[in-house]
């Protein structure tokens, strides 16, 4: 099998059930958006993993540069007061 090298790569996001966010689950090769959805469906939702699918061309994702991780993320490390840990979350709230 060829690796579909002339087909663009698409990132796949699956919403497991209503109320949850779409989560990145992997990627597929496909020639166009419609078949990207079909391939995502056939590859990642064969076992009832989801109720909704997003596919996004990998090249359309703007990613941070790992080399910038220091300036982007480390300043947050010592700011514990930003964590919502000073009050109790009701049991009924499942996904927070």
């Amino acid at each position, binding site marked *: *099998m*060829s*690796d*579909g090298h002339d*087909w663009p790569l698409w990132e796949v996001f699956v919403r497991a059930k209503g109320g949850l966010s779409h989560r990145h689950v992997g990627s*597929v*090769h*496909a*020639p*166009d958006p*419609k*078949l990207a959805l*079909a*391939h995502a469906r*056939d*590859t990642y939702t*064969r076992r009832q993993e989801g109720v909704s699918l997003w596919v996004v061309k990998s090249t359309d994702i703007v990613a941070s540069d790992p080399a910038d991780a220091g300036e982007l993320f480390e300043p947050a490390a010592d700011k514990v007061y930003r964590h919502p840990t000073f009050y109790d979350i009701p049991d009924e709230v499942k996904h927070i």
Partner: protein
Amino acid sequence: MPSPPAFEKDAEEKAKRAPDSGAFDEQTPEAGSDPLEDAYYDYLCRLGDDALVLGQRLGEWCGHAPVLEVDLSLANLALDLIGQATLALGHANNGDGDELAFHRDVLDFRNCLLVEQPNGDFARTIARQLLFSTWQHILYRELTESPDKFLREFAAKAVKEVAYHRELASEWTIRLGDGTEESARRMAEGLDWCWRFIPELFEVDEDLEEMIARQTVPDPRGFEAEYYAAIEDVLGQAALAIPADQRPILGGRRGHHSEHLGHLLAAMQYLPRTYPDATW
């Protein structure tokens, strides 16, 4: 969604104990007692064998498809179809669909000739899928209205699966037809190969006539125009010409198969016949 009745292990014993007046009880079909029972059994075999044989054919692509994603797509279609075959053949044979799948010989198979045709290249596989799934989808859609409980519930589950098969085959037909010079040529050749097997899908013989007369199943001639319009629409989007009419080839529904089915069955039936008690 309603699911078909579960097979009860002691159904056969129950049937023996059932009073004679219960001959029409749908749990205890007695082949031979009524022409409809024969026709009904035959109809279930047609539904089941179409799905089984095409499922087996599509399974042959496993590990050989052009790309990994397509490999998974085709295997998914195959599994849908084998699930449908399990239901239909199981209902025909008191829950033991395996006996029909693995222990009948080629003359007893009731599938249409289209589904047993060899895969050929990817384009011919897609042509076969387009021509068959479009027909199967319309048939199942109509069967969801059947007064027969099993057929109605079977169709309600399967129609969603086949809607996707039809959609996927249509999309691929359009891409191959409207793709490169080579893909368009292969797609046209694939359609040309499969075209002569379409009339069989709309053939009505005595058994089917019997079922139609009792209003249990749709008359396929009733949706023939819709079928051709749908195919022509897809071929139009694919920039493909409608193949010229060819001399139709019929006979699958009566067990007159092409030489290809025997080879398919040999591969499919070898294991359970050689090792009857094998489990996994």
